[in-house]
């Protein structure tokens, strides 16, 4: 019984529940595609979004109720409190991308908090291992989100101001000897800002799940019910904090991408 619990919960190594596990490989057009559990979770989040959000938007009453009310409250909050102060009249052009980013990160984070590994292991009598996990605890997933944000920021800035106008407005007005230094600094900043976005989201999710795994491993290694009980109560409280962090990190990512798009589309002087 202890062996069953151990292999569900801690697997001897707190990092083994957060890292990517390869499930199988596919041969696609001469290249190999590695299907891992994080890829499966990203697809699950995408399928859930594609199913749930149109269902919620389908309601035809004037007064929103139920599922539509829930999603509409979040969407209106993002549009009025985050997007409109930063983007002004360009809100409607970018709000689709911002809503997509927010809900994708939120669904990935929350799916990471659902114990899919344990449930599938119990239901399949030990056959299915490591099928779930937090997709955003993978640097490549958050890196892909950051690369998308990078192209969104600079391409929309170029489209709004023209390429030469964008390059001219890239730096704040400084005396002419400082202009090359400013260009180097702004260029480095343009690369560092999406990198920081991806690292922030990735490390928050990684740290949360690692601490949870380490605490549960501690509860098992203590081999006493008292210590295990207190540790598991602490894990429950930490899981509540992780739920808050899931929402907060999605909000922070969306907020910062909005700020960067606003700064690129109409740079204030």
């Amino acid at each position, binding site marked *: 019984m202890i062996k069953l619990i151990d292999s569900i919960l801690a697997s001897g190594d707190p990092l083994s529940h957060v890292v990517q596990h390869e499930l199988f490989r596919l041969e696609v057009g001469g290249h190999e595609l590695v299907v891992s559990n994080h890829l499966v979770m990203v697809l699950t989040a995408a399928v859930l979004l594609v199913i749930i959000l149109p269902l919620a938007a389908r309601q035809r009453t004037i007064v929103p109720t139920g599922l539509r009310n829930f999603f509409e409250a979040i969407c209106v909050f993002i549009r009025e409190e985050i997007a409109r102060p930063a983007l002004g009249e360009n809100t409607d052009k970018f709000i689709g991308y911002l809503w997509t980013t927010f809900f994708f990160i939120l669904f990935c984070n929350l799916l990471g908090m659902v114990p899919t590994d344990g449930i599938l292991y119990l239901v399949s009598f030990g056959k299915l291992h490591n099928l779930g996990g937090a997709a955003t605890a993978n640097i490549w997933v958050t890196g892909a989100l950051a690369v998308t944000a990078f192209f969104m920021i600079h391409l929309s800035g170029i489209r709004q101001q023209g390429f030469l106008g964008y390059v001219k407005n890239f730096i704040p007005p400084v005396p002419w000897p400082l202009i090359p230094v400013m260009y180097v600094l702004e260029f480095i900043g343009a690369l560092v800002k999406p990198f920081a976005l991806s690292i*922030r989201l990735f*490390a928050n999710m990684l740290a949360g799940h690692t601490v949870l795994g380490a605490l549960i491993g501690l509860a098992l290694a203590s081999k006493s019910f008292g210590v295990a009980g207190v540790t598991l109560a602490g894990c429950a409280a930490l899981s509540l904090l992780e739920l808050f962090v899931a929402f907060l*990190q999605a909000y922070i990512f969306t907020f910062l991408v909005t700020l960067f798009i606003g700064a690129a589309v109409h740079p204030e002087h």
Partner: protein
Amino acid sequence: MNFEMLAAQADLLSGSSVGLAIVGTAIGCGLIVIGASLGISKIASNAVESIARQPEAGGRIFTTMIISAALIEGFTFFAIVVCLLGVSNLETLAKLSLGITE
């Protein structure tokens, strides 16, 4: 935890300075935590003070506090990830330093 495997690994690597590297990583982690908590506690204390001074601006001050704390935590977590990378690659680095090529 598989203690026998850990003990065998520790025996193999006792000739290298893996222990010192782990101590260095742990001390670095502690320094990161001190820096981050100093920064975020300063933000939080100023936010609480200004909300007490002007309660009707409470919503905006709370939002600003949360955003600033998340920004500081951003690069804090980057530093923690650097520590984790060092710790997880200790075995390969120690084997390299001992000249064990396999």
